[in-house]
């Protein structure tokens, strides 16, 4: 088909305009950098968006290994580049645009003060290998953040270097394995609830463990009896999330800890859902040995379209000796970095990353914590849980909550409310896009059918939630009227309609090539 898409779709059911922006330019093709007109202007004055001085004349010392031939990069001016990326940005939904009700992601507001302080030259221009005397402020900041996080966790030690949650999981599980091996204990199994995030079993398998799933009970919690039946001297650890991925508090955590420790195994907590517990529950008191935190979830550092994150790991005293390098320590009147496996750090598992960790995210997270204060954390988690329960109360008559009772910071629905309509969870989510919202988490956790996991966070106003509720109720009503075609063709109003992911996977095109054919629309 050629020309712009037919724009005569029906009005959004709720009457609100899509938050993803409107206007023709948003929907039109924005050429790739490589396709921009004149991008390959040849000649000595080839175009660039950066003016650099001419290199001084020297006799080169490249050993005859000068690069031959052109790289193939396009040359554009600064205004062209700024316009290209500005137009691209306008095709994106974002927290700044609207609510992201994504369960398990805690898409909260990213304070702009965080961006300002992370860019202070005294932080941004620090090289990681400067003499320690010249970076005392940086080390002090890392130490200060560690104190905040250890206090929130209720645990004595913290590894700062993991680069993201999944990296934190690897770090924590490596510490557990190191601790077991230090006692000559080779174990082969890790227990993981069926509702767990995919990174949990992936992490366990990466470290050579056999993953043994634990079913949930009718209350949506880990089935304690099933768990006990699976425990044995060959179990290295259990990996739990609390609150769990159904948005429910695992209230048998202490009993679980006792059973797990009883066979000499460790208790790993996936801290992705920490937002519900801030200032109200210290996970360290739940009997855990190890917990990663996601600074890009609970602690407001920006998602940036897929990272960077930061995943520090809180450790019990039994695991602290194995923490990866480097360690920030007090040394007389100053701070120092332990960068070798010697002395106190002799049993460290070594490095899991170059340099020291995601310093830029440490600064942002600390600014966020300083803003709320220790005295403000309970109000934060309170609003997060209140918002989720408000959504539950306002939607439970038209959607189908998977479990009875109140939720914590996120609420789980399943697709029973879609019954015999022929509308799937996916279709419903794509129609939500036309209402101007990013869909909630879909098809996760796996333990219910067609899951819809909704987490509003504490940063949504009541007005914002009420508008979301209206949109959800109208869509649910429309689905029950069996308007299947409408849903299956959604979204109608986004910068792109539904994309063919099967074709993308069958014949992967992962880059532009100079001989690339014109697009289908031409």
């Amino acid at each position: 088909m050629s020309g712009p898409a037919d724009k005569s779709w029906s009005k959004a059911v709720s009457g609100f305009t899509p938050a993803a922006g409107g206007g023709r330019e948003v929907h039109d093709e924005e050429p790739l950098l490589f396709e921009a007109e004149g991008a390959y202007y040849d000649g000595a004055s080839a175009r660039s968006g950066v003016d650099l001085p001419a290199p001084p004349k020297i006799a080169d010392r490249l050993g005859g290994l000068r690069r031959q031939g052109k790289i193939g990069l396009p040359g554009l001016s600064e205004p062209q580049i700024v316009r290209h990326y500005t137009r691209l940005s306008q095709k994106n939904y974002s927290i700044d645009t609207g609510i992201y009700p994504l369960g398990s992601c805690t898409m909260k507001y990213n304070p702009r003060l965080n961006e300002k302080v992370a860019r202070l030259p005294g932080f941004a221009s620090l090289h990681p290998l400067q003499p320690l005397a010249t970076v005392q402020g940086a080390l002090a900041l890392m130490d200060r953040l560690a104190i905040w996080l250890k206090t929130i966790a209720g645990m004595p030690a913290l590894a700062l270097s993991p680069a993201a949650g999944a990296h934190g999981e690897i770090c924590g599980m490596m510490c557990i394995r190191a601790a077991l091996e230090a006692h000559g204990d080779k174990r082969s199994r890790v227990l993981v609830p069926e509702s767990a995030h995919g990174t949990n079993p992936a992490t366990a398998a990466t470290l050579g463990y056999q993953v043994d799933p634990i079913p949930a009970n009718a209350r949506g919690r880990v089935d304690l009896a099933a768990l006990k039946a699976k425990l044995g001297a060959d179990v290295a650890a259990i990996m739990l999330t609390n609150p769990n991925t159904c948005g429910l508090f695992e209230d048998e955590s202490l009993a679980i800890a006792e059973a797990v420790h009883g066979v000499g195994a460790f208790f790993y907590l996936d801290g992705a859902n920490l937002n519900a517990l801030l200032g109200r529950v210290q996970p360290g008191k739940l009997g855990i040995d190890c917990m990663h935190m996601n600074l890009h979830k609970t602690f407001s550092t920006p998602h940036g379209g897929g990272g960077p994150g930061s995943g520090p790991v809180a450790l019990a005293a039994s695991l602290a000796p194995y923490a990866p390098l480097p360690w920030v320590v007090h040394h007389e009147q100053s701070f120092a970095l332990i960068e070798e496996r010697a002395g106190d750090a002799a049993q460290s598992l070594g490095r899991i990353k170059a340099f020291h960790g995601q310093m830029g995210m440490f600064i942002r997270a600390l600014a966020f914590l300083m803003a709320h204060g220790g005295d403000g954390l309970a109000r934060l988690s309170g609003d997060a849980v209140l918002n989720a329960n408000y959504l539950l109360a306002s939607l439970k008559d038209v959607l189908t909550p998977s479990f009875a009772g109140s939720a914590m910071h996120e609420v789980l629905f399943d697709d029973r409310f879609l019954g015999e309509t022929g509308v799937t969870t996916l279709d419903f989510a794509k129609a939500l896009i036309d209402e101007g919202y990013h869909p909630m988490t879909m098809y996760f956790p796996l333990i219910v059918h067609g899951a819809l996991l909704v987490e509003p966070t504490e940063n949504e106003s009541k007005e914002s939630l009420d508008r979301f509720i209206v949109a959800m109720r109208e869509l649910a009503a429309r689905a029950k009227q069996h308007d299947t075609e409408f849903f299956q063709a959604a979204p109608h109003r986004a910068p792109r309609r539904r994309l063919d992911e099967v074709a993308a996977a069958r014949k992967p095109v992962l880059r532009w090539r100079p001989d690339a054919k014109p697009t289908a629309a031409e």
Partner: protein
Amino acid sequence: MRYLPLTDEDRRAMLGVIGAKSVDDLFGDVPAALRLSAPLDLPSGLGEIEIERELASLAAQNMAAGAVPSFLGAGAYRHHVPAAVDYLVQRGEFLTSYTPYQPEIAQGTLQALFEFQTQVALITDMEVANASMYDGATAAAEAVMMANRATRRAKALIAGDLHPHYRAVIETYGRFNGFATAMAPVDALAASLDAAISCVVVQNPGFFGDVRDYAALAEACHKAGALLVVAVTEVVALGLIKSPGAMGADIVVAEGQSLGNALEYGGPYLGLFATREKFMRQMPGRLTGQTVDADGLRGFVLTLSAREQHIRREKATSNICTNSGLCALAFSIHLALLGEAGFTRLAELNHAKAVQLAERLEKLPGVKLMTPSFFNEFTLRLPRPAAPLVDALATRGILAGVPVNRLLPERPNDLLVAATELTTDADIDALDAALREALR
């Protein structure tokens, strides 16, 4: 509190709808014994004024490498980032957007990543690249695990001049993922190949700065059924020296920090990962692919996701989820601004500055230049231990380079010195004079 929109009136109304008496009641599933009865022992909440003041005072205790003559490298480099880059990545639609799992409303991120993947493939001279990893070191570890999968072998041979942090990370993963590692000096690598080796991991330019041609090693690897992994810790080098792809590398991993991303005391940085098309499905991490939408318009999606953790779970190619999206965007914008002419000129400028610096410092009495061929970084062997000297120069406001024994204890007299486009003649004069005096 400025980030919390709910008013007390809102809370009351909402509790009314829920049918609960107080917010605390919503935590009824938490056993009372586990609930805190008082706020945590942490400082009270602050406004922007106080936070800025406190953090500025911490920042002021640091000597910014940007404010003084500095010659630090060893895997992280001080480059100029054009103003437009940092402005663009702070647009809310980029900064505050989620992973592009709903492609219809994430075409900005997805198209930018598709362009990024293309740029990485072009500068490394490889066929496909992924949408980023945490950093160069973890990318190297992932490359080894991929080579193990592809060859069904379980031992990596590591060059002696691979960045010590990269080697350490590979060794950590080896210990826990169940593969072995061995190390050999660069000129002994080919001879150390055997049928157990899945890959050889080299770095170019090497940790000590050396620029080498690994084409012959690539051939030797392929004859032995192993893959050649080339690590690049200074991507600007790819604008001037022979590419890893041209040498016959199977996997290229790199640290992308040099383009678009501040030094920021070591993170967040940017792992690049590129390989040949035949290994495409073995690649860890996210991949962006081109497709069409229901109206036939071109669009981009995350693809080949079945390999990733959220689907494959315990059989995933990697457990990586969040990667370095915004750092990749910054890299991509910076490289787009530079273009072919700018990138190659930037590389020439870096090399020229380093040559000027080397010409001065190799004349210092008792000092030996250990690196005959280099890009923008080289090793000096001093007549005395380097670390105390560097500390002394720091107190005089010069960051003279990285003492090698900060990473390799067995080389106390070696100093790694780097120059970039930001190095001025005055900087070179200052370092030359300071070292001359310190070595008297």
